[in-house]
């Protein structure tokens, strides 16, 4: 066998669940401590990269990694919405149980390129998960970035993710957090309406700015439209992270192509200028 064949890219590392907590309706945060070589593989992954998480006996699915590496300590966070068979089985697991993890995969956000820019992070529902590493990066390196606005949305208050971190985000210098939900309850005292309405009200300036959006495809489409048509952003300034069902994460299974791009290796992070230039629509 040649050297290249010594590692099997389809074989996951083992990870032990060290914390499992409910963070929203049907959404749990899983903290995974990497074992047997996984620590080495994940020692310097980038915000926006993703990994396959296995529920052994059911299958594996890709998830955005929801934290940044801390002091080379390879403990990975995944915020997982219970939707299909793999996520349902993962929701049954508790502290001490094992999962499989393959990765890190994908290009990630070019955080170095964002240095010195004003950042607007726009998250919809569980789409907030891959944006949390961006928020953590800015907080940990506050002087590297300009004004920071977080626009956070969900269908209703019970679906907002990372609520226990909002005070910390708000306390960060030169940082704003704006919340909106489609349907409020009686305790809600923030905006009500779609994320596009919130963007129009907050009206971030396109001057020296970058937006970073994750959410359902239809939200990405309309967020970009508002930013470009109402606020004067260029599509090149609007970064998004796309999702696709995929089965390998290494550019082989064919599942995630969007025209000539493979979301797993060419993405999942693209600018809307790149997305707009593709043959095929993500919608």
């Amino acid at each position, binding site marked *: 066998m040649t050297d290249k064949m010594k590692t099997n890219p389809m074989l996951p590392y083992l990870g032990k669940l060290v914390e499992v907590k409910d963070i929203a309706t049907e959404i749990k945060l899983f903290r995974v401590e990497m074992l047997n070589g996984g620590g080495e593989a994940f020692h310097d992954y980038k915000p926006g990269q993703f990994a396959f998480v296995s529920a*052994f006996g059911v299958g594996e699915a890709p998830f955005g990694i929801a934290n940044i590496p801390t002091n080379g300590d390879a403990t990975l966070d995944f915020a997982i919405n219970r939707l299909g068979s793999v996520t349902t089985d993962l929701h049954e697991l508790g502290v001490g149980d094992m999962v499989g993890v393959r990765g890190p995969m994908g290009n990630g956000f070019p955080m170095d390129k964002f240095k010195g820019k004003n950042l607007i992070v726009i998250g919809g529902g569980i789409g907030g998960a891959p944006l949390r590493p961006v928020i953590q990066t800015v907080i940990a390196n506050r002087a590297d970035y300009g004004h920071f606005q977080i626009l956070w949305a969900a269908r209703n208050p019970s679906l907002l993710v990372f609520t226990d971190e909002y005070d910390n985000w708000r306390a960060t210098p030169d940082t704003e957090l704006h919340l909106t939900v489609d349907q409020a309850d009686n305790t809600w005292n923030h905006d009500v309406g779609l994320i596009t309405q919130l963007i129009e009200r907050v009206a971030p300036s396109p001057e020296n700015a970058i937006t970073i959006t994750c959410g359902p495809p239809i939200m990405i489409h309309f967020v970009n439209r508002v930013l470009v048509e109402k606020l004067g952003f260029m599509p090149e300034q609007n970064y998004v992270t796309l999702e696709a069902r995929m089965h390998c994460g290494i550019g082989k299974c064919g599942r995630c192509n969007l025209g000539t791009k493979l979301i797993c290796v060419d993405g999942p992070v693209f600018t809307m200028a790149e997305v707009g230039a593709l043959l095929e629509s993500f919608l």
Partner: protein
Amino acid sequence: MNYLTHQELAAWLDRLAQEHTLIAPLDIAGNILYRPVSDTKEVVWDFVRSFMSVKEVFFPPTERLMLMEKIGQQVTLTETLPEGNSIIFGVRPCDARGLLTFDALFIENEPVDPYYARRRENTTLIGLACQSVGASCFCTNVGGAPDDPTGMDIMLTASNGGYVAEIITEKGEKISKKYPVFDGLSEIRPHPTHARKRELKVPPKEVWPARFNDDFWAEMAERCLSCRICAYVCPSCRCFDVRDEVLPGEDGRNQSERIRCWDSCNGIPYRRVAGGHNPRFMKNQRLRNRFFCKFYYFPIHYGPVSCTGCGRCIDACPVNVDITEVLGYVGRRK
């Protein structure tokens, strides 16, 4: 030059079958399929094209990637790489070209897929040039030929009642040098069979993007049933799914296997994402993707065109979606 009579070749195959796993075209309930041979008398020598390609040997319809066992909270994983060597007799040139597209995907494009790479490394191909060209064959239009030895380890071409044998690679030499009928590596190309050449040009990849939004795809898709047989019989379609299956427990053991199985972009849920959104919900979008993959996306990503001109999809399609009709349209339209 190596020249073997039919009897000499049959005797050699017998020897090979005794010492190795020999896979050859067999008649299975009326279909020619490549299967392990127990009696070389059952080998079918005279056929135009097998129902399934040799892809099955290297990239099985379903294969195990690993075994998993849970004991309490602990999990053990066992990698299950394929073992053993085999020799395939009677490989057609189009199928060998199909393997070259898989080489580009699984071996030349890193990371290497160890399952495919191992099978490829441990398998020797004995090619058999086509003596006749099937009604739906169009290999010569995609760069192949009925006697093309590309990708073979040994190439046999029928001639004057016997066979001309070209020993092309070291692997081919290894399985032939023990037998006195061969006299070493040959340098002589056997005479070619007469290939019927259709008036069809495969449009270069540059012309494809301008055809993306044409009504043609919707018209073609009106017939399509999304049955996916085209991908199933294709020697170069490679889409796969990965999932786990629970194994019957022995003594209460909690064991499961991770499998990889063939898939097709023509299936409705293929591109569906969490939350139910499906950017390829329409049949014409899926049908278009298959052809764009073969002649535009795959060449961009991995190099070769993902079509060998075998024509299996044309014969298998229940509603006559014809890949040569698609190529004709894309090449013709200005």
